[in-house]
Protein backbone atom coordinates (compact mmCIF):
# COMPACT_ATOMS: atom_id res chain seq x y z
CA UNK A 1 0.00 0.00 0.00
CA UNK A 2 1.23 3.43 -0.83
CA UNK A 3 1.62 5.77 2.07
CA UNK A 4 -0.40 8.96 1.90
CA UNK A 5 2.74 11.07 1.57
CA UNK A 6 3.64 9.22 -1.66
CA UNK A 7 0.45 10.19 -3.50
CA UNK A 8 0.08 13.48 -5.40
CA UNK A 9 -3.10 14.98 -3.92
CA UNK A 10 -3.15 18.18 -5.92
CA UNK A 11 -1.11 17.46 -9.07
CA UNK A 12 -0.09 20.31 -11.32
CA UNK A 13 -2.79 21.38 -13.77
CA UNK A 14 -2.65 24.29 -16.14
CA UNK A 15 -4.81 27.22 -15.08
CA UNK A 16 -6.25 29.94 -17.36
CA UNK A 17 -4.39 32.49 -15.19
CA UNK A 18 -1.20 31.21 -16.85
CA UNK A 19 -2.47 32.34 -20.26
CA UNK A 20 -3.74 35.76 -19.18
CA UNK A 21 -2.13 38.71 -20.95
CA UNK A 22 -1.99 40.79 -17.77
CA UNK A 23 -1.48 39.24 -14.31
CA UNK A 24 -4.76 38.18 -12.70
CA UNK A 25 -5.40 39.70 -9.28
CA UNK A 26 -6.53 37.50 -6.35
CA UNK A 27 -7.89 38.67 -3.00
CA UNK A 28 -5.69 36.45 -0.86
CA UNK A 29 -2.82 34.20 -1.90
CA UNK A 30 -1.28 31.80 0.58
CA UNK A 31 2.18 30.36 -0.03
CA UNK A 32 2.56 26.86 1.38
CA UNK A 33 0.07 24.00 1.78
CA UNK A 34 1.36 22.74 5.13
CA UNK A 35 -0.80 22.65 8.27
CA UNK A 36 -0.75 26.43 8.67
CA UNK A 37 -1.39 27.36 5.02
CA UNK A 38 -4.22 24.86 4.61
CA UNK A 39 -5.87 25.90 7.87
CA UNK A 40 -5.69 29.57 6.85
CA UNK A 41 -7.23 28.78 3.48
CA UNK A 42 -10.12 26.89 5.10
CA UNK A 43 -10.74 29.64 7.65
CA UNK A 44 -10.86 32.35 4.97
CA UNK A 45 -13.00 30.29 2.56
CA UNK A 46 -15.49 29.57 5.34
CA UNK A 47 -15.74 33.35 5.71
CA UNK A 48 -16.37 33.60 1.92
CA UNK A 49 -13.02 35.26 1.29
CA UNK A 50 -11.64 33.98 -2.06
CA UNK A 51 -8.32 32.30 -1.42
CA UNK A 52 -5.65 30.64 -3.57
CA UNK A 53 -2.95 28.37 -2.12
CA UNK A 54 0.32 27.97 -4.03
CA UNK A 55 2.55 25.04 -3.10
CA UNK A 56 5.86 24.00 -4.61
CA UNK A 57 4.92 20.36 -3.99
CA UNK A 58 1.76 18.36 -4.74
CA UNK A 59 1.34 16.11 -1.70
CA UNK A 60 1.41 16.03 2.10
CA UNK A 61 4.76 16.19 3.84
CA UNK A 62 6.97 13.15 4.23
CA UNK A 63 7.61 11.72 7.70
CA UNK A 64 5.62 12.26 10.84
CA UNK A 65 7.15 15.67 11.77
CA UNK A 66 4.75 17.51 14.09
CA UNK A 67 2.95 14.86 16.11
CA UNK A 68 1.44 16.43 19.25
CA UNK A 69 -1.70 18.47 18.70
CA UNK A 70 -3.09 20.41 21.62
CA UNK A 71 -6.61 20.91 22.87
CA UNK A 72 -6.73 24.44 21.49
CA UNK A 73 -5.67 23.20 18.04
CA UNK A 74 -8.45 20.60 18.14
CA UNK A 75 -10.95 23.31 19.06
CA UNK A 76 -9.74 25.40 16.12
CA UNK A 77 -10.12 22.34 13.88
CA UNK A 78 -13.69 21.98 15.13
CA UNK A 79 -14.33 25.52 13.99
CA UNK A 80 -12.71 24.65 10.64
CA UNK A 81 -14.98 21.62 10.27
CA UNK A 82 -12.47 18.79 10.65
CA UNK A 83 -11.99 18.19 14.38
CA UNK A 84 -13.66 14.79 14.59
CA UNK A 85 -11.59 12.99 11.96
CA UNK A 86 -8.36 14.16 13.56
CA UNK A 87 -9.42 13.14 17.06
CA UNK A 88 -10.81 9.77 15.91
CA UNK A 89 -7.60 8.92 14.07
CA UNK A 90 -5.23 10.32 16.67
CA UNK A 91 -3.99 8.67 19.83
CA UNK A 92 -5.15 10.35 23.03
CA UNK A 93 -2.71 10.36 25.91
CA UNK A 94 -2.53 11.93 29.35
CA UNK A 95 0.29 10.22 31.20
CA UNK A 96 3.97 11.06 31.07
CA UNK A 97 6.79 9.10 32.68
CA UNK A 98 10.20 10.54 33.48
CA UNK A 99 13.31 8.39 33.80
CA UNK A 100 16.76 9.39 35.05
CA UNK A 101 19.70 7.10 34.47
CA UNK A 102 18.40 3.58 35.08
CA UNK A 103 15.25 4.31 37.05
CA UNK A 104 11.81 5.82 36.70
CA UNK A 105 11.66 8.91 38.90
CA UNK A 106 8.02 9.88 38.56
CA UNK A 107 4.82 9.82 36.55
CA UNK A 108 2.67 12.82 35.75
CA UNK A 109 -0.86 13.14 34.51
CA UNK A 110 -1.83 16.11 32.38
CA UNK A 111 -5.06 15.80 34.38
CA UNK A 112 -7.59 16.76 31.79
CA UNK A 113 -10.10 18.73 33.76
CA UNK A 114 -13.64 17.44 33.58
CA UNK A 115 -16.06 19.06 31.17
CA UNK A 116 -14.14 19.76 27.96
CA UNK A 117 -15.06 18.38 24.56
CA UNK A 118 -11.45 17.85 23.52
CA UNK A 119 -8.57 16.08 25.31
CA UNK A 120 -5.37 17.84 26.37
CA UNK A 121 -3.42 16.29 23.47
CA UNK A 122 -3.61 13.83 20.64
CA UNK A 123 -0.68 12.33 18.78
CA UNK A 124 -1.08 12.21 15.03
CA UNK A 125 1.40 12.14 12.18
CA UNK A 126 1.58 15.49 10.39
CA UNK A 127 0.80 13.76 7.07
CA UNK A 128 -2.59 12.69 8.46
CA UNK A 129 -3.22 16.18 9.83
CA UNK A 130 -2.48 17.67 6.41
CA UNK A 131 -4.52 15.00 4.62
CA UNK A 132 -7.60 15.79 6.73
CA UNK A 133 -7.19 19.52 6.13
CA UNK A 134 -6.84 18.83 2.41
CA UNK A 135 -10.02 16.71 2.45
CA UNK A 136 -11.80 19.59 4.16
CA UNK A 137 -10.59 21.89 1.37
CA UNK A 138 -12.08 19.49 -1.20
CA UNK A 139 -15.34 19.47 0.72
CA UNK A 140 -15.45 23.28 0.62
CA UNK A 141 -14.73 23.23 -3.12
CA UNK A 142 -17.73 20.92 -3.58
CA UNK A 143 -19.85 23.31 -1.52
CA UNK A 144 -18.87 26.06 -3.93
CA UNK A 145 -16.63 27.97 -1.52
CA UNK A 146 -13.97 30.18 -3.14
CA UNK A 147 -10.89 28.06 -2.41
CA UNK A 148 -8.24 26.61 -4.73
CA UNK A 149 -4.87 24.86 -4.40
CA UNK A 150 -2.29 24.86 -7.19
CA UNK A 151 0.37 22.19 -6.92
CA UNK A 152 3.94 22.59 -8.18
CA UNK A 153 3.52 26.37 -8.33
CA UNK A 154 6.75 27.68 -6.83
CA UNK A 155 6.98 31.39 -6.06
CA UNK A 156 10.29 32.69 -7.40
CA UNK A 157 10.03 36.41 -6.77
CA UNK A 158 7.88 38.81 -4.78
CA UNK A 159 7.28 42.48 -5.39
CA UNK A 160 5.64 44.30 -2.49
CA UNK A 161 3.64 47.36 -3.57
CA UNK A 162 1.41 49.68 -1.53
CA UNK A 163 -1.82 48.32 -3.04
CA UNK A 164 -0.87 44.80 -4.12
CA UNK A 165 1.80 42.10 -4.09
CA UNK A 166 3.25 40.79 -7.34
CA UNK A 167 4.31 37.15 -7.55
CA UNK A 168 6.45 35.45 -10.16
CA UNK A 169 5.58 31.77 -10.20
CA UNK A 170 7.45 28.86 -11.74
CA UNK A 171 5.53 25.80 -12.93
CA UNK A 172 6.41 22.62 -14.89
CA UNK A 173 5.12 24.50 -17.96
CA UNK A 174 7.02 27.70 -17.36
CA UNK A 175 6.54 30.92 -15.42
CA UNK A 176 3.55 33.22 -14.94
CA UNK A 177 2.63 36.19 -12.78
CA UNK A 178 -0.16 36.86 -10.32
CA UNK A 179 -1.17 39.81 -8.18
CA UNK A 180 -2.58 39.50 -4.67
CA UNK A 181 -4.33 42.05 -2.50
CA UNK A 182 -2.91 40.18 0.48
CA UNK A 183 -0.22 37.53 0.70
CA UNK A 184 0.10 35.11 3.63
CA UNK A 185 3.48 33.39 3.79
CA UNK A 186 3.14 29.96 5.41
CA UNK A 187 6.25 28.54 3.78
CA UNK A 188 7.99 27.15 6.84
CA UNK A 189 11.11 27.79 8.90
CA UNK A 190 13.27 28.30 5.82
CA UNK A 191 10.61 30.61 4.31
CA UNK A 192 11.68 31.55 0.77
CA UNK A 193 9.29 34.52 1.06
CA UNK A 194 11.21 35.85 4.04
CA UNK A 195 14.48 35.41 2.16
CA UNK A 196 13.18 37.00 -1.05
CA UNK A 197 12.02 40.02 0.93
CA UNK A 198 15.36 40.21 2.75
CA UNK A 199 13.75 40.13 6.19
CA UNK A 200 15.44 39.33 9.49
CA UNK A 201 15.02 36.12 11.48
CA UNK A 202 17.20 36.37 14.56
CA UNK A 203 17.45 34.25 17.66
CA UNK A 204 19.42 31.60 19.39
CA UNK A 205 20.95 28.51 17.79
CA UNK A 206 21.26 25.43 19.98
CA UNK A 207 24.37 23.39 19.32
CA UNK A 208 22.84 19.97 19.43
CA UNK A 209 21.64 17.27 17.06
CA UNK A 210 18.60 15.11 17.55
CA UNK A 211 17.85 11.88 15.76
CA UNK A 212 14.17 11.30 15.07
CA UNK A 213 13.14 7.80 14.13
CA UNK A 214 9.61 6.66 13.43
CA UNK A 215 9.47 2.93 13.92
CA UNK A 216 6.61 0.56 13.27
CA UNK A 217 6.43 -2.08 15.96
CA UNK A 218 3.92 -4.22 17.75
CA UNK A 219 5.05 -3.49 21.26
CA UNK A 220 3.22 -3.39 24.51
CA UNK A 221 4.52 -0.02 25.63
CA UNK A 222 1.55 1.93 26.99
CA UNK A 223 0.14 5.03 25.31
CA UNK A 224 2.25 7.44 27.34
CA UNK A 225 5.00 9.95 26.85
CA UNK A 226 8.29 8.51 28.14
CA UNK A 227 11.22 10.83 28.63
CA UNK A 228 14.71 9.78 29.70
CA UNK A 229 17.47 11.94 31.10
CA UNK A 230 20.89 10.32 30.73
CA UNK A 231 19.67 6.76 30.04
CA UNK A 232 22.08 3.79 29.79
CA UNK A 233 21.26 3.42 26.08
CA UNK A 234 22.12 7.05 25.30
CA UNK A 235 24.66 8.14 27.89
CA UNK A 236 24.87 11.80 28.77
CA UNK A 237 21.95 12.61 26.45
CA UNK A 238 18.14 12.50 26.47
CA UNK A 239 15.54 10.29 24.79
CA UNK A 240 11.81 10.41 24.12
CA UNK A 241 9.30 7.71 23.18
CA UNK A 242 5.83 8.65 22.00
CA UNK A 243 3.05 6.66 20.37
CA UNK A 244 1.29 7.57 17.13
CA UNK A 245 -1.54 5.81 15.25
CA UNK A 246 -0.86 2.64 13.15
CA UNK A 247 1.70 1.25 15.65
CA UNK A 248 4.12 3.99 14.69
CA UNK A 249 6.33 5.13 17.54
CA UNK A 250 8.29 8.36 17.61
CA UNK A 251 11.74 8.02 19.08
CA UNK A 252 13.81 11.09 19.64
CA UNK A 253 17.46 10.68 20.66
CA UNK A 254 19.75 13.55 21.51
CA UNK A 255 23.12 12.99 19.83
CA UNK A 256 25.25 15.96 20.83
CA UNK A 257 26.99 18.47 18.57
CA UNK A 258 30.14 16.80 17.22
CA UNK A 259 28.69 14.04 15.09
CA UNK A 260 28.74 12.91 11.49
CA UNK A 261 25.15 13.67 10.55
CA UNK A 262 25.09 11.56 7.39
CA UNK A 263 26.61 8.54 9.10
CA UNK A 264 24.21 8.75 12.05
CA UNK A 265 21.21 8.54 9.72
CA UNK A 266 22.27 5.21 8.22
CA UNK A 267 20.26 2.17 9.36
CA UNK A 268 23.42 0.36 10.51
CA UNK A 269 23.94 3.15 13.05
CA UNK A 270 20.32 3.79 13.89
CA UNK A 271 19.16 0.20 14.43
CA UNK A 272 21.69 -0.71 17.17
CA UNK A 273 20.77 2.50 19.03
CA UNK A 274 17.09 1.59 18.89
CA UNK A 275 17.72 -2.01 19.91
CA UNK A 276 19.62 -0.78 22.96
CA UNK A 277 16.60 1.34 23.87
CA UNK A 278 13.73 -1.00 23.02
CA UNK A 279 15.33 -4.36 23.82
CA UNK A 280 17.15 -6.82 21.58
CA UNK A 281 14.04 -8.94 20.93
CA UNK A 282 11.64 -6.20 19.87
CA UNK A 283 10.95 -6.35 16.14
CA UNK A 284 10.49 -3.08 14.35
CA UNK A 285 10.71 -1.42 10.94
CA UNK A 286 12.08 2.06 10.33
CA UNK A 287 9.53 4.31 8.64
CA UNK A 288 11.38 7.60 8.73
CA UNK A 289 14.72 8.84 10.06
CA UNK A 290 15.81 12.41 10.27
CA UNK A 291 18.40 14.46 12.12
CA UNK A 292 17.57 17.95 13.17
CA UNK A 293 19.09 20.87 14.98
CA UNK A 294 16.95 23.74 16.09
CA UNK A 295 16.80 27.41 16.80
CA UNK A 296 14.56 29.62 18.88
CA UNK A 297 13.90 32.79 16.90
CA UNK A 298 11.28 35.01 15.38
CA UNK A 299 10.83 37.81 12.89
CA UNK A 300 10.79 41.25 14.40
CA UNK A 301 7.37 41.89 12.85
CA UNK A 302 4.94 39.38 11.32
CA UNK A 303 3.24 41.88 9.04
CA UNK A 304 5.14 43.71 6.33
CA UNK A 305 2.63 45.82 4.43
CA UNK A 306 0.45 43.43 2.48
CA UNK A 307 2.62 40.41 3.25
CA UNK A 308 1.78 38.57 6.47
CA UNK A 309 3.85 35.75 7.92
CA UNK A 310 2.38 32.84 9.90
CA UNK A 311 3.63 29.64 11.50
CA UNK A 312 7.28 28.56 11.30
CA UNK A 313 7.91 31.19 8.63
CA UNK A 314 7.39 33.82 11.35
CA UNK A 315 8.75 32.03 14.40
CA UNK A 316 10.64 28.89 15.24
CA UNK A 317 10.97 27.03 18.54
CA UNK A 318 12.58 23.86 19.81
CA UNK A 319 10.32 20.82 19.54
CA UNK A 320 10.08 20.38 23.33
CA UNK A 321 6.58 21.43 24.27
CA UNK A 322 4.79 20.91 20.95
CA UNK A 323 4.76 24.63 20.31
CA UNK A 324 5.45 24.68 16.57
CA UNK A 325 2.38 23.56 14.63
CA UNK A 326 0.13 24.39 17.58
CA UNK A 327 1.26 28.01 17.62
CA UNK A 328 0.91 28.15 13.83
CA UNK A 329 -2.73 27.15 14.14
CA UNK A 330 -3.21 29.90 16.72
CA UNK A 331 -1.70 32.36 14.22
CA UNK A 332 -4.31 31.32 11.67
CA UNK A 333 -7.10 31.53 14.24
CA UNK A 334 -6.01 35.05 15.13
CA UNK A 335 -5.40 36.34 11.60
CA UNK A 336 -8.23 35.11 9.39
CA UNK A 337 -11.24 36.84 10.95
CA UNK A 338 -9.28 40.09 11.01
CA UNK A 339 -8.28 39.83 7.36
CA UNK A 340 -11.88 38.94 6.41
CA UNK A 341 -13.21 42.03 8.22
CA UNK A 342 -10.61 44.26 6.59
CA UNK A 343 -11.45 42.88 3.14
CA UNK A 344 -15.18 43.38 3.76
CA UNK A 345 -14.57 46.97 4.83
CA UNK A 346 -15.84 46.29 8.35
CA UNK A 347 -12.55 47.17 10.00
CA UNK A 348 -9.56 49.36 9.17
CA UNK A 349 -6.28 47.84 7.99
CA UNK A 350 -4.73 48.60 11.36
CA UNK A 351 -6.77 45.72 12.82
CA UNK A 352 -4.02 43.59 11.28
CA UNK A 353 -1.48 45.30 13.53
CA UNK A 354 -3.16 43.52 16.42
CA UNK A 355 -2.28 40.23 14.72
CA UNK A 356 1.31 41.34 14.92
CA UNK A 357 1.00 42.36 18.60
CA UNK A 358 -0.87 39.28 19.76
CA UNK A 359 1.06 36.66 17.86
CA UNK A 360 4.47 38.20 18.58
CA UNK A 361 3.42 38.02 22.22
CA UNK A 362 2.48 34.35 21.70
CA UNK A 363 5.75 33.62 19.91
CA UNK A 364 7.78 35.20 22.72
CA UNK A 365 5.95 33.06 25.26
CA UNK A 366 6.65 29.94 23.22
CA UNK A 367 10.30 30.85 22.67
CA UNK A 368 10.76 31.53 26.40
CA UNK A 369 9.22 28.19 27.37
CA UNK A 370 11.00 26.12 24.78
CA UNK A 371 14.35 27.79 25.50
CA UNK A 372 13.98 26.97 29.20
CA UNK A 373 13.10 23.34 28.39
CA UNK A 374 16.10 23.08 26.14
CA UNK A 375 18.41 24.49 28.79
CA UNK A 376 17.13 21.89 31.24
CA UNK A 377 17.26 18.95 28.83
CA UNK A 378 20.68 19.79 27.42
CA UNK A 379 22.69 21.58 30.14
CA UNK A 380 25.28 23.86 28.61
CA UNK A 381 27.67 24.27 31.54
CA UNK A 382 29.07 22.14 34.34
CA UNK A 383 26.97 23.98 36.91
CA UNK A 384 23.72 23.73 34.92
CA UNK A 385 24.38 19.99 34.68
CA UNK A 386 24.90 19.80 38.45
CA UNK A 387 21.63 21.59 39.20
CA UNK A 388 19.72 19.62 36.57
CA UNK A 389 20.87 16.33 38.10
CA UNK A 390 20.13 17.61 41.59
CA UNK A 391 16.55 18.39 40.55
CA UNK A 392 16.13 14.91 39.06
CA UNK A 393 17.59 13.17 42.13
CA UNK A 394 15.28 15.14 44.43
CA UNK A 395 12.26 14.60 42.15
CA UNK A 396 12.55 10.84 42.61
CA UNK A 397 11.92 11.28 46.33
CA UNK A 398 10.11 14.56 46.83
CA UNK A 399 7.06 16.00 45.19
CA UNK A 400 8.31 19.58 45.54
CA UNK A 401 11.12 19.10 43.01
CA UNK A 402 8.90 17.66 40.25
CA UNK A 403 7.62 20.99 38.93
CA UNK A 404 11.27 21.94 38.38
CA UNK A 405 11.78 18.98 36.02
CA UNK A 406 11.41 20.39 32.53
CA UNK A 407 11.16 17.83 29.74
CA UNK A 408 9.02 20.26 27.71
CA UNK A 409 6.27 22.62 28.91
CA UNK A 410 3.42 21.45 26.74
CA UNK A 411 1.59 23.97 24.63
CA UNK A 412 -1.29 25.83 26.22
CA UNK A 413 -3.15 28.60 24.37
CA UNK A 414 -1.80 32.10 24.72
CA UNK A 415 -3.73 34.60 26.86
CA UNK A 416 -3.38 38.04 25.26
CA UNK A 417 -3.07 39.93 28.54
CA UNK A 418 -3.00 43.70 27.94
CA UNK A 419 -3.70 43.08 24.24
CA UNK A 420 -4.76 46.05 22.12
CA UNK A 421 -8.24 44.65 21.43
CA UNK A 422 -9.15 43.90 25.06
CA UNK A 423 -11.49 46.06 27.10
CA UNK A 424 -10.14 46.64 30.61
CA UNK A 425 -11.70 44.25 33.05
CA UNK A 426 -13.49 46.58 35.43
CA UNK A 427 -15.12 43.83 37.44
CA UNK A 428 -12.23 41.81 38.81
CA UNK A 429 -14.66 39.59 40.67
CA UNK A 430 -15.24 37.26 37.72
CA UNK A 431 -12.92 34.23 37.34
CA UNK A 432 -9.34 34.97 36.22
CA UNK A 433 -9.27 32.12 33.71
CA UNK A 434 -11.92 33.79 31.55
CA UNK A 435 -10.42 37.30 31.68
CA UNK A 436 -10.21 39.45 28.53
CA UNK A 437 -7.50 38.09 26.23
CA UNK A 438 -8.08 34.46 27.24
CA UNK A 439 -9.51 31.88 24.87
CA UNK A 440 -12.94 30.64 25.90
CA UNK A 441 -12.84 27.81 28.38
CA UNK A 442 -14.98 25.02 27.08
CA UNK A 443 -17.77 23.63 29.28
CA UNK A 444 -20.72 21.30 28.84
CA UNK A 445 -23.76 23.18 27.55
CA UNK A 446 -27.04 21.27 27.52
CA UNK A 447 -26.39 18.11 25.52
CA UNK A 448 -23.39 19.64 23.75
CA UNK A 449 -20.46 21.95 24.32
CA UNK A 450 -19.99 25.68 24.69
CA UNK A 451 -17.20 25.65 22.09
CA UNK A 452 -19.64 24.39 19.41
CA UNK A 453 -22.37 26.87 20.30
CA UNK A 454 -20.33 30.02 19.62
CA UNK A 455 -21.00 32.00 16.43
CA UNK A 456 -18.63 32.38 13.48
CA UNK A 457 -18.45 36.10 14.13
CA UNK A 458 -18.65 37.94 17.46
CA UNK A 459 -20.76 36.27 20.14
CA UNK A 460 -22.46 37.70 23.22
CA UNK A 461 -22.51 35.03 25.89
CA UNK A 462 -25.12 35.99 28.49
CA UNK A 463 -25.35 33.96 31.66
CA UNK A 464 -28.42 34.40 33.84
CA UNK A 465 -29.06 37.93 32.62
CA UNK A 466 -31.18 39.54 29.90
CA UNK A 467 -29.47 40.22 26.56
CA UNK A 468 -31.04 41.23 23.24
CA UNK A 469 -31.09 38.50 20.60
CA UNK A 470 -28.69 38.77 17.63
CA UNK A 471 -28.29 42.55 17.45
CA UNK A 472 -26.16 44.47 14.97
CA UNK A 473 -23.92 47.06 16.62
CA UNK A 474 -21.35 49.26 14.90
CA UNK A 475 -22.15 47.42 11.67
CA UNK A 476 -21.19 44.05 13.17
CA UNK A 477 -23.77 41.28 13.52
CA UNK A 478 -23.59 39.61 16.92
CA UNK A 479 -24.79 36.13 17.80
CA UNK A 480 -26.39 35.96 21.24
CA UNK A 481 -26.00 32.85 23.33
CA UNK A 482 -28.14 33.02 26.49
CA UNK A 483 -27.51 30.28 29.02
CA UNK A 484 -28.34 29.44 32.63
CA UNK A 485 -25.71 28.49 35.16
CA UNK A 486 -28.11 26.31 37.14
CA UNK A 487 -28.44 23.82 34.28
CA UNK A 488 -24.78 24.19 33.29
CA UNK A 489 -22.84 24.25 36.56
CA UNK A 490 -19.34 23.89 35.08
CA UNK A 491 -20.04 26.77 32.72
CA UNK A 492 -21.24 28.75 35.73
CA UNK A 493 -18.07 27.95 37.67
CA UNK A 494 -15.80 28.96 34.79
CA UNK A 495 -17.63 32.16 33.77
CA UNK A 496 -19.35 33.43 36.91
CA UNK A 497 -17.36 32.13 39.86
CA UNK A 498 -19.18 33.58 42.84
CA UNK A 499 -21.06 36.23 40.80
CA UNK A 500 -24.77 35.89 39.98
CA UNK A 501 -24.65 36.84 36.27
CA UNK A 502 -22.38 38.12 33.48
CA UNK A 503 -22.16 38.98 29.80
CA UNK A 504 -19.07 38.10 27.74
CA UNK A 505 -18.09 39.48 24.34
CA UNK A 506 -16.31 36.69 22.44
CA UNK A 507 -14.27 37.36 19.30
CA UNK A 508 -14.55 35.24 16.14
CA UNK A 509 -11.37 33.40 17.18
CA UNK A 510 -13.07 32.50 20.47
CA UNK A 511 -10.90 34.77 22.58
CA UNK A 512 -12.65 36.93 25.14
CA UNK A 513 -12.69 40.64 24.30
CA UNK A 514 -14.67 42.05 27.24
CA UNK A 515 -17.04 41.12 30.06
CA UNK A 516 -19.53 42.85 32.29
CA UNK A 517 -22.01 42.07 35.04
CA UNK A 518 -24.87 42.79 32.63
CA UNK A 519 -25.70 43.90 29.10
CA UNK A 520 -25.27 47.58 28.32
CA UNK A 521 -25.48 48.63 24.68
CA UNK A 522 -23.11 51.54 25.01
CA UNK A 523 -20.46 49.43 26.72
CA UNK A 524 -20.78 46.58 24.21
CA UNK A 525 -20.54 49.03 21.29
CA UNK A 526 -17.41 50.60 22.72
CA UNK A 527 -15.77 47.19 23.24
CA UNK A 528 -16.74 46.07 19.77
CA UNK A 529 -15.12 49.16 18.30
CA UNK A 530 -12.02 48.47 20.30
CA UNK A 531 -11.96 44.80 19.29
CA UNK A 532 -12.11 45.80 15.62
CA UNK A 533 -9.46 48.53 15.94
CA UNK A 534 -11.92 51.36 15.36
CA UNK A 535 -11.60 52.92 18.78
Amino acid at each position, binding site marked *: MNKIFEIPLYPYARHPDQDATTPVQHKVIIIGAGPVGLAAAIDLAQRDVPVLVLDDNDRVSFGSRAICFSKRTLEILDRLGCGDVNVETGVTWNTGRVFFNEREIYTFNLLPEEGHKRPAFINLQQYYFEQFLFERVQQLVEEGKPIEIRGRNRVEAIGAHPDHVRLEIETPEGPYELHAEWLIACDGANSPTRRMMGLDFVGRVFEDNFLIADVIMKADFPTERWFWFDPPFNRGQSALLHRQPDNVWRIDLQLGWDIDREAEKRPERVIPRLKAMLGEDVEFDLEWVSIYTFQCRRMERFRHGRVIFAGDAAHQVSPFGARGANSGLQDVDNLCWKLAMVLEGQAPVRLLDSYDWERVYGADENILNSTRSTDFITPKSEMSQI*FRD*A*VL*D*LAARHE*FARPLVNSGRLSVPCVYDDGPLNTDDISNTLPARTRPGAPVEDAPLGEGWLIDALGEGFTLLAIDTACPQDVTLEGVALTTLSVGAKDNPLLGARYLGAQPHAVYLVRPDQHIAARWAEYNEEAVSASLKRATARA
Partner: protein
Amino acid sequence: MPELKLKTNLRDPDSFYANLLAMHDGLSKAESDALNARLILILANHIGDEQVLARALHLAAEAAPDQSAH
Protein backbone atom coordinates in the same frame (compact mmCIF):
# COMPACT_ATOMS: atom_id res chain seq x y z
CA MET B 1 5.36 40.76 53.14
CA PRO B 2 8.23 38.52 54.28
CA GLU B 3 11.71 39.99 53.97
CA LEU B 4 15.02 38.24 53.64
CA LYS B 5 16.48 38.01 57.15
CA LEU B 6 19.90 39.61 57.32
CA LYS B 7 20.26 39.72 61.10
CA THR B 8 21.47 36.63 62.94
CA ASN B 9 18.78 33.97 62.77
CA LEU B 10 20.75 30.83 63.67
CA ARG B 11 20.47 29.94 67.35
CA ASP B 12 23.71 27.94 67.30
CA PRO B 13 25.82 29.10 64.36
CA ASP B 14 28.84 26.94 65.25
CA SER B 15 26.97 23.68 65.30
CA PHE B 16 25.13 24.46 62.03
CA TYR B 17 28.45 25.26 60.38
CA ALA B 18 29.99 22.07 61.72
CA ASN B 19 27.04 20.01 60.44
CA LEU B 20 27.27 21.66 57.05
CA LEU B 21 30.94 20.78 56.69
CA ALA B 22 30.50 17.29 58.16
CA MET B 23 28.09 16.46 55.33
CA HIS B 24 30.91 17.00 52.86
CA ASP B 25 33.42 14.79 54.69
CA GLY B 26 34.90 12.20 52.37
CA LEU B 27 33.00 13.43 49.31
CA SER B 28 34.63 14.10 45.95
CA LYS B 29 34.31 17.58 44.47
CA ALA B 30 31.53 16.33 42.14
CA GLU B 31 29.64 14.74 45.03
CA SER B 32 29.99 17.91 47.09
CA ASP B 33 28.77 20.09 44.25
CA ALA B 34 25.73 17.85 43.84
CA LEU B 35 25.05 17.95 47.57
CA ASN B 36 25.22 21.74 47.64
CA ALA B 37 22.86 21.95 44.67
CA ARG B 38 20.31 19.68 46.35
CA LEU B 39 20.57 21.71 49.54
CA ILE B 40 19.97 24.99 47.69
CA LEU B 41 16.89 23.55 45.99
CA ILE B 42 15.45 22.21 49.25
CA LEU B 43 15.98 25.53 51.03
CA ALA B 44 14.63 27.55 48.09
CA ASN B 45 11.43 25.52 48.08
CA HIS B 46 11.08 26.00 51.83
CA ILE B 47 11.38 29.77 51.44
CA GLY B 48 9.04 29.86 48.47
CA ASP B 49 8.52 33.61 48.45
CA GLU B 50 9.69 34.96 45.08
CA GLN B 51 10.85 38.32 46.37
CA VAL B 52 12.85 36.83 49.22
CA LEU B 53 14.49 34.40 46.80
CA ALA B 54 15.24 37.13 44.27
CA ARG B 55 16.85 39.20 47.03
CA ALA B 56 18.88 36.20 48.21
CA LEU B 57 20.13 35.51 44.67
CA HIS B 58 21.09 39.13 44.33
CA LEU B 59 22.93 39.31 47.66
CA ALA B 60 24.78 36.07 46.99
CA ALA B 61 26.04 37.40 43.65
CA GLU B 62 26.87 40.80 45.15
CA ALA B 63 28.98 39.33 47.96
CA ALA B 64 31.49 37.79 45.52
CA PRO B 65 35.03 39.00 46.37
CA ASP B 66 35.92 42.07 44.35
CA GLN B 67 38.80 41.02 42.07
CA SER B 68 40.11 44.54 41.56
CA ALA B 69 40.25 45.58 45.21
CA HIS B 70 43.16 43.36 46.19
